[in-house]
């Protein structure tokens, strides 16, 4: 006797669920600034809670690193008796700087990323000791400087003297490596959106770096992420700031061209 109504209710529930699922899916397609053509920021692969953390400047723990950078901006160091602010004035002068890194430097005949640019400023102009790669100071300053360009589209050069580095980076990206014999592209191009254990594979975009990773309980650089990825396919990682990673950084930033700078982004 009671069977028919309960069946009806069940059917109704199912219909409702299907309807909601359809809606959520449609909404997921609209990522606003976080999607350019088919390029999607890691933001769009993150859990809603993680996205909420990033969206709220106060809640975003990456901003603690930006504060470190903010303090160091004014701090006089080195024999030249200068601080960042002595030459660059306010941090707002750094607006738009981050989008074009890594850059080609003629005197080095090599690429240079923002971390290395900051350190070159320290050694050449401030006559101070360079910060260690992945130190709180260097990460803090990098986050702070990149954060000034928040929301601006990534735009690295890949032609002219950049071309050989771009090709090198592209080759790295497509080169199988490690015991697992996997290239970057196997996960981040062929299986983006797929599941890697409990994680959802993103496109491996670099626009949010240095990023606050919940797993790290802290901020880490793009090269740290590269090293992590390389270790996971059981290959030997290259060093921080190595030529291989600089070329790869250029290629990865080009892959994410047009995506907004999100530093400090929050990821799982």
């Amino acid at each position: 006797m009671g069977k028919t109504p309960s069946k009806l209710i069940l059917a109704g529930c199912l219909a409702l669920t299907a309807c909601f699922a359809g809606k959520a899916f449609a909404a997921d397609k609209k990522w606003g600034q976080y999607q350019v053509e088919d390029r999607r920021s890691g933001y769009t692969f993150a859990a809603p809670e993680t996205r909420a953390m990033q969206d709220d400047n106060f809640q975003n723990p990456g901003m603690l690193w930006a504060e470190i950078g903010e303090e160091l901006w004014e701090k006089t160091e080195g024999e030249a008796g200068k601080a960042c602010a002595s030459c660059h004035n306010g941090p707002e002068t750094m607006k738009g700087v981050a989008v074009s890194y890594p850059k080609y430097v003629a005197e080095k005949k090599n690429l240079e990323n923002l971390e290395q640019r900051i350190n070159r400023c320290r050694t050449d102009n401030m006559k101070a000791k360079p910060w260690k790669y992945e130190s709180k100071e260097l990460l803090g300053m990098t986050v702070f400087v990149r954060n000034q360009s928040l929301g601006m589209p990534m735009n690295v050069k890949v032609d002219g003297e950049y071309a050989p580095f771009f090709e090198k980076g592209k080759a790295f990206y497509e080169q199988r490596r490690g015991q697992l014999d996997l290239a970057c592209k196997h996960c981040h191009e062929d299986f983006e959106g797929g599941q890697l254990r409990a994680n959802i594979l993103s496109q491996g975009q670099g626009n949010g770096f240095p990023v606050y990773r919940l797993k790290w309980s802290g901020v880490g650089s793009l090269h740290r992420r590269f090293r992590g990825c390389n270790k996971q396919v059981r290959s030997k990682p290259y060093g921080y700031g190595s030529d291989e990673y600089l070329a790869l950084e250029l290629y990865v930033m080009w892959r994410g061209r047009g995506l907004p700078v999100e530093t400090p982004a929050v990821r799982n």
Partner: protein
Amino acid sequence: MANIKPRVRIPRKAKAGEVVEIKSLIEHKMETGQRKGKDGNKIPRKIINRFECKFEGDLVFASDWHPAISANPYLAFHMRAEKTGEFEFKWIEDGGAEYVKKAKMTVS
């Protein structure tokens, strides 16, 4: 850990009877006591084990924390604004160290 900076965000002004959101964040490693260091020995536990918020000396919110709380813990809660006064936020660490932050709110 040297220079631990607590941060709070409260509305500076509120209307009487309004429910306001209080947000807090503290930079802290929250060392669980489960990890091993490079020498193979356990790193001793050092977490913030209690958070308290007092308003004009009255306890309005408190919570006991355990090792599963994440690093750099964020906490938000709501309270009804009734009078003008000063908040005192206190984070208590294992070993008894305290980090305190004060903030004023004007209620009209």
